[in-house]
């Protein structure tokens, strides 16, 4: 707010220095990263050809893994939001005993190497209760394990995002609603949540992207069984391990394409115009 004023107030005293060096410096620094990503993509493209991509797409195993990836990531995202929104809200609005501990616990999935999450899940499912559950409803090495592995990591990101979102929403709105006779629940659904839609969108994006990239826990907890628990990241690993670098790269590119499409769709549907309307009270 101050800078333009200062600029305008003293145009004659100090000759206005050009902003160009500033933009150039920032532009160069910022663009290195963008260039790096683009360069990697180009290198990837050089390592594969159209036929490779078609071949990858025509393989039933890879088609299955695309389908499983997209569906499991979406399920994980929804589940993460179901947990992330209430948990983020509680953490943001209320003081309760053990809150510091809960906060620290929620950091664990973010800090730990994903491999450790997979290993821990695998060990968890050897305890009597979960073993019994597993026999009743197969999870380990079955599709639900993929979702559970993704959820274990992705949800932490959703919770963090939602908490920050609610932190940034001024509690005044809900307080006014409460004084006007709303219950907590009504205030939440009609006042807080519509305001949090951008945060929800970010949380969803993060959770979805995290899930798509998930590899370590799935390899350990779900195995790499073709046509069963093979997701795209596993496909890349499997193709790489038989020396099929072209196919690995082709699948990587498919992953990038899928991610770009889904994230763009999410942004379009989540834009003020469409998403905003849905949330309008």
């Amino acid at each position, binding site marked *: 707010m101050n800078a333009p004023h200062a600029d305008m107030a003293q145009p004659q005293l100090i000759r206005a220095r050009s902003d160009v060096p500033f933009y150039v410096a920032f532009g160069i620094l910022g663009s290195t990263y963008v260039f790096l990503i683009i360069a990697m993509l180009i290198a990837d493209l050089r390592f594969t050809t159209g036929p490779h991509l078609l071949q990858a797409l025509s393989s039933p195993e890879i088609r299955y893994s695309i389908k499983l990836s997209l569906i499991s990531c*979406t399920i994980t995202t929804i589940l993460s939001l179901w947990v992330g929104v209430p948990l983020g809200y509680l953490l943001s609005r209320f003081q309760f005993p053990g809150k510091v501990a809960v906060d620290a616990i929620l950091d664990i999935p973010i800090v730990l190497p994903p491999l450790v999450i997979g290993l821990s899940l695998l*060990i968890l499912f050897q305890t009597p209760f979960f073993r019994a559950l597993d026999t009743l409803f197969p999870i*380990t090495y079955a599709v639900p394990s993929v979702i559970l592995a993704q959820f274990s990591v992705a949800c932490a990101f959703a919770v963090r995002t939602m908490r920050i979102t609610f932190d940034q929403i001024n509690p005044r709105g809900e307080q006014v609603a409460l004084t006007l006779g709303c219950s907590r629940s009504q205030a939440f659904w009609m006042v807080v949540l519509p305001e949090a839609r951008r945060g929800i969108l970010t949380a969803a994006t993060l959770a979805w992207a995290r899930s798509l990239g998930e590899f370590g826990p799935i390899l350990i907890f779900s195995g790499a069984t073709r046509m069963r628990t093979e997701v795209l990241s596993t496909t890349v690993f499997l193709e790489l*391990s038989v*020396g099929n670098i072209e196919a690995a790269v082709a699948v990587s590119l498919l992953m990038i394409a899928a991610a770009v499409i889904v994230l763009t769709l999410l942004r379009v549907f989540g834009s003020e115009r469409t998403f905003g309307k849905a949330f309008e009270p």
Partner: protein
Amino acid sequence: MLRLFHSGRINGAWLAFLGSIVVLGLLIAMLAWPAGSEPSKTPLLVYCAAGLMTSVTAIAKEYEAESGVPIHLNFGGSQTLLAEFEINKRGDLYLPADNSYLGMARKKDLIAEVIPLASMNVMLAVKKGNPKGIKVLDDLLKEGVKLSQTNPDAAAVGKLTREKMEKLGRWEELKKHTTVFKGTVNDVAADIKIGSVDAGFVWDVFLIQYPDLEKIPIPELDGVSAKMSVAVLKSSANATAALRFARYLSARDKGLKEFERNGFKPLSGDTWTGTPELRLMSGAMLRPAIEETIIAFEQREGCRVTRVYNGCGILVAQMKSGQHPDAYFACDSTFMTQVSDLFLDSTEISTNQLVIIVKKGNPRNIHGLKDLGQANLKIGVGHEQQCALGALTKNMLETAGRYNVVAKNVKVQSPTGDMLVNQLRTGSLDAVIAYASNMTHNKDELEAIGIDIDCATATQPYAVGKESGNAQLALRLLDAIKSGASKERFVKNGFHWQGAPK
């Protein structure tokens, strides 16, 4: 109660939430859809080294089509997979890239049967065209040549390379000139293919998977090879089905062909049949000791063992006339030597003592060989040509210098010790010379008198036929016979346990 309607409209946030439930339900339904059409047969879970994916996937597909049993292949690094099933104690088969992992699994008591599959050699590989002109091992030490290796502690290739190079005294300098150590051999091959290094040590089978690689033959790596096998996991709830697929994988006309197509050197495998039939010739004396073991073996393997029990002399005669069994369990090593050209190395399982058997109370007062010459004594012995018992008895009596004295009292020669014992029990004989094991089931009626001569001991060896199409199966039967449960049966039946390989 929450008001869903606000100024006549459904609350948008609620709508979004309800929508998410519907979407979730739909997605789960989409995932569950193919599960319903899965075949009803119990699937097999196979932990398979990622490097073997090409071969094993093809074999599994073929087997699924043939048998209808779904095979779930779980790929990963050999070591990682080992850790997985060690923790979750489930799954049916383990197929690591090198037998050393099976050793580890065995130590942890995680595996049961092991069936050999194929071997592969370590080779020095460069990019096709050999741009750096690498010809001998010393070229790797040149300035500007980048070498990639697998970590010797993490992967089999690295381990084998280090062992050999250490023996040649070349390891330290090679290690110093190695640009990078990778976790798996696939990473090394990928390094060479992409061009980030110039050379690396990989499996020779990679030449087929990676057509961009070229082999540089160096004498230092001759004979440096890894053997691969498939193992049945102890955790398998479906061991018979697991063994059936393991047999398919290792069959010379099925799985091994596919391995060979992918560059592996197949090891000797059995011929494929869904329910294999093993022909076992065995000395009659061994029947009570091995019968239960064989029945259990048949059930677990899903195979049939056709047993031919008889006196060993008769069995040898049958073999010499052209009947070649898959396995032969002889009453005494002398009867193995006679047909040793038909069999691979034999394993001594047990020994059995020759004794004089009399009726309880010892009415004729016999205390050793010297008493067998008394007048009016009716003695039974084994047939000198037909069985090991007879041959051993003759040999023993001759050694003791009592052959002629005893011979005049011999009223009958029988082909098996059991027949002699029966004749003794009916009262037609006063004493018989037979194995200690022959009287284990009639201990209440009979009495044994020891013979204190070295050569009064028979040794029972087991051997697998050289030409057998079921050699691996016969070897697994040997493993079953060598097991602890089998040992108990031998001891219970009056045998002394040898059980150790020759």
